[in-house]
């Protein structure tokens, strides 16, 4: 199990490959990556992610430990960046490894659903026209938790 909260970019390909290679005997590896996407056609200048140092690591660890308890996982990984990012930059990734693809998929979706609504990150979008706005939480994200 690995949890990383960092300002620096991470190498998605290298992390995915290392995770897969380390999950011996697992058979099924699922990854999810979140990428900074444009607000509207070319209008985004940058994104800034604020977080709550201490609580972030604590929340991610709790969520990941719960996933390891609920599903039969060989391993799980969460990396989440904070600070300033640009369109196309990778914000975060999760990865899960299991003997069964169903467990790997469900656990990755669980990690994402809880991370979205329970880990203390806040996104602010800076537009090219000079405006900036905090991204609003979606009801759908809170609703997603009722599935688990």
């Amino acid at each position: 199990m690995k949890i990383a909260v960092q300002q620096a970019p991470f190498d998605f390909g290298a992390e995915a490959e290392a995770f897969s290679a380390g999950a011996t005997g697992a058979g099924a590896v699922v990854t999810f990556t979140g990428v900074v996407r444009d607000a509207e056609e070319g209008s985004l200048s940058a994104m800034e992610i604020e977080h709550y140092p201490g609580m972030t690591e604590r929340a991610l660890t709790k969520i990941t430990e719960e996933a390891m308890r609920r599903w039969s996982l060989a391993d799980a990984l969460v990396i989440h960046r904070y600070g300033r990012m640009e369109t196309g930059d990778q914000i975060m990734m999760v990865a899960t490894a299991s003997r069964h693809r169903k467990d790997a998929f469900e656990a990755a979706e669980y990690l994402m659903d809880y991370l979205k609504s329970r880990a203390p990150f806040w996104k602010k979008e800076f537009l090219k026209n000079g405006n900036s706005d905090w991204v609003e939480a979606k009801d759908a994200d809170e609703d997603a938790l009722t599935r688990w």
Partner: protein
Amino acid sequence: MDVLYFAWVRERIGIPREQVETEAATVAELVAELSAREDRYAAAFADLSALRVALDQDLMDFDASLAGVREVAFFPPMTGG
């Protein structure tokens, strides 16, 4: 007690954290106390349904007790991932 603010709550109140001396028994009482203090607090706390609170880094409800709590944090719903 340390009180922390994040995202637009931090921007509206104007500081990321402060030390607060209080006799408030619950989060709701602390919110009322701060809101009475200055307009910027009242503005930040105007709609509690748009806010979340963590006590010692665990998410809690606004009616939670402050007994033994060392760190209170106010922020909007999270938008990570």
